[in-house]
């Protein structure tokens, strides 16, 4: 999974070379957005549920220290081994150590965006450990040697014909098969063998309950359960923001999560893990990796309320037309664009600009993160920190001077209209990105100011 050095605009341009594919990608995700709308509208108290979830998470973020210690104590009392990881590398080392201690070199893993964020698969591969992802979509992108393009639907960018091709190449089925049921059954048989033979299984965590020391993993495929029920060692990796105070709060979050994500009333499996079964070892790794830094950023802290439903991606008109890989981070889309600059400002300076600030993301967010407002605020931070391209800086300074002076403004306006009228070739060329697919506006004979001066200002 090579990291691209191209920015979002360039990657989006590449994605847009195949317009039919863009249409298909857009329609597929729009269909999910519509499913989400339909099921949300069946819950009359939907907006109060969002507010409740938001307030619970605000409470968690304001008392994170206490909840973490409470969780650790209760989890340990339940027999879970608790580890703390300050960053990605520490997390990866802990996982590696646990695998070494179990004397194995193979692990099965269900979906965990945190391990994507930490680059766990690559790290373990470098150390001779084989990881098989058991989520169908993740397995597909793993076979394709790609990263997930969406946090809930990792291979949403792939068509069934392409999946058939991959399964032909790697899982030994005949060529040219694209029947979804056949492909799913193929994956099921392939993964069954993996589940039966792996002694260590890693899962993510959707919610961890401070009060009881248990955690909940939500999947639609049951693959997390299949992995851990057959393994001697269960490792659960969780970001420290995944806590909720009490079990009863799950009643709020589980109702919101999958309605927002895929338009289902609830995930097929919402599995509670409280203690290891006899003979099994259960580990939980509490990972910071930049989260406390984000918690310290007043304008951006509430991005940590995120429950990773991806509703903001499905609704984002830019995401739907640029594809998840154009965001070049583990978490794509609007939420990824406000999380990523915290991890690496330089590398992700383009992402907060990959938005029209339309605000649809904030409206669908089940925990009411003000995503589009944070995109705006990140832009201010990134420019101040010196990450604006020079051309843009010069242009903005020029605009500032012109627009701060009525005389200069009128002069520039007149000049602009004159050029459009008498020298349109100066703007109607390929140096002007507007002109590539759009005509320039027709220059009017006079501006409104000029009209007003002639018609009204004698008053």
């Amino acid at each position, binding site marked *: 999974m090579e990291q691209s050095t191209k920015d979002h*605009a360039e990657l*989006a*341009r590449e*994605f*847009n070379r195949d317009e039919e594919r863009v249409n298909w990608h*857009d329609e597929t995700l*729009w269909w999910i957005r519509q499913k989400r*709308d339909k099921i949300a*509208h069946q819950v009359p108290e*939907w*907006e109060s549920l969002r507010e409740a979830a938001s307030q619970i998470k605000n409470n968690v973020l304001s008392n994170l220290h206490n909840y973490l210690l409470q969780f650790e104590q209760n989890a340990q009392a339940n027999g879970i081994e608790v580890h703390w990881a300050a960053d990605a590398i520490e997390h990866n080392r802990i996982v590696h150590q646990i695998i070494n201690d179990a004397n194995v070199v193979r692990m099965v893993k269900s979906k965990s965006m945190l391990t994507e964020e930490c680059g766990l698969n690559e790290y373990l591969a470098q150390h001779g450990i084989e990881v098989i992802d058991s989520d169908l979509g993740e397995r597909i992108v793993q076979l394709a040697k790609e990263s997930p393009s969406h946090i809930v639907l990792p291979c949403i960018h792939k068509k069934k014909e392409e999946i058939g091709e991959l399964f032909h190449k790697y899982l030994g089925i005949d060529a040219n098969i694209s029947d979804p049921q056949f492909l799913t059954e193929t994956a099921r048989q392939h993964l069954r063998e993996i589940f039966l033979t792996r002694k260590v299984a890693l899962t993510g965590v959707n919610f961890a309950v401070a009060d009881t020391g248990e955690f909940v993993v939500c999947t639609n495929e049951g693959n997390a359960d299949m992995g851990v029920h057959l393994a001697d060692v269960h490792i659960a990796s969780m970001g420290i923001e995944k806590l909720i105070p009490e079990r009863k709060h799950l009643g709020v979050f589980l109702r919101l999560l999958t309605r927002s994500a895929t338009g289902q009333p609830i995930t097929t499996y919402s599995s509670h893990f409280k203690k290891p079964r006899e003979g099994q070892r259960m580990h939980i790794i509490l990972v910071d990796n930049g989260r406390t830094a984000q918690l310290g950023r007043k304008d951006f802290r509430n991005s940590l309320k995120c429950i990773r439903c991806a509703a903001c991606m499905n*609704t984002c*008109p*830019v995401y739907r*037309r*640029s594809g998840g890989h154009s965001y070049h981070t583990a978490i794509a889309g609007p939420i990824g664009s406000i999380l990523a600059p915290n991890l690496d400002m330089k590398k992700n300076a383009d992402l*907060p*600009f990959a938005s*029209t*600030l*339309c*605000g*649809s993301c904030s*409206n*669908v967010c089940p925990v009411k993160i003000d995503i589009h407002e944070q995109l*705006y605020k990140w*832009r*201010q931070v*990134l*420019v*101040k920190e010196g990450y604006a391209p020079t051309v*843009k800086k010069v242009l*903005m*300074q020029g605009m*500032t001077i*012109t*627009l*701060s*002076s*009525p005389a200069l*403004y009128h002069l520039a*306006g007149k000049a*602009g*209209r004159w050029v459009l009228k008498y020298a349109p070739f100066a703007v109607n060329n390929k140096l002007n*990105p*507007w002109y*590539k*697919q*759009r*005509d320039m*506006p*027709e220059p*009017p004979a006079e*501006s*409104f*100011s000029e*009209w*007003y*001066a002639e018609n*009204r200002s004698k008053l």
Partner: protein
Amino acid sequence: MTVGLFIPCYVDQFYPGAAIATLELLEKLGVNVVYPMNQTCCGQPMANSGFEHLTKGCDELFVKNFAGFDYIVAPSGSCVLHIRDHLHYSQRPDEAAGIRSRIFELTTFLTDILQVKSLPAKFPHRVGLHQSCHGQRGLHVSSMTELVAPEFSKPGSLLSMVAGIDLIELNRKDECCGFGGTFCVTEEAVSAKMGKDRVADHLQHGAEYITGVDMSCLMHLEGILKRQGSKVKVIHIAEILNAG
């Protein structure tokens, strides 16, 4: 009641028709309207590009131009939202705050302040209403499809007062057109694709005109329509409400 007319810079320069219609419409409704001649721009192009710190000059000009009015009205949701959210002037903070609370996007001013119940307008055409995001999601000029809340539309209610108008349905009622300020050039590929998709939705439903509260979105859609050689036109909502 004296209203200060704020005309966004690009409307002043490229779409004087929308500005004239706004002025005439307000006058028709008995409002005393003054257009301060020294106005330029609200500063949004810089701010949305991350250069909010460069908007001081625009902010100061704005306060000087508009501090004295009962209301400030503009035929734009986007520029009004910018002023509402971001107008600051450290030397005259109270006047800036006053402007922030007294500035209105045109259709909201008509429905909420003037409480217009009927209009003498006539526009016998098939019209598609484009919901501009900043007006809709920022200023709440209409309900939003994402939220579980009662439906309403201030621009829609005004358009329904126009004789002969045939408002079309759209597949996607409130999807962004992709203009997005400097986004339209920095993310040209996605911006143009979003615009093409919006245009296609209106064309599919037989629109003769595409209207909206923001000329910026319409300028973008117009650029695409013209490139496609389409006969469909864009028209600011003020021009429809002032027609006939």
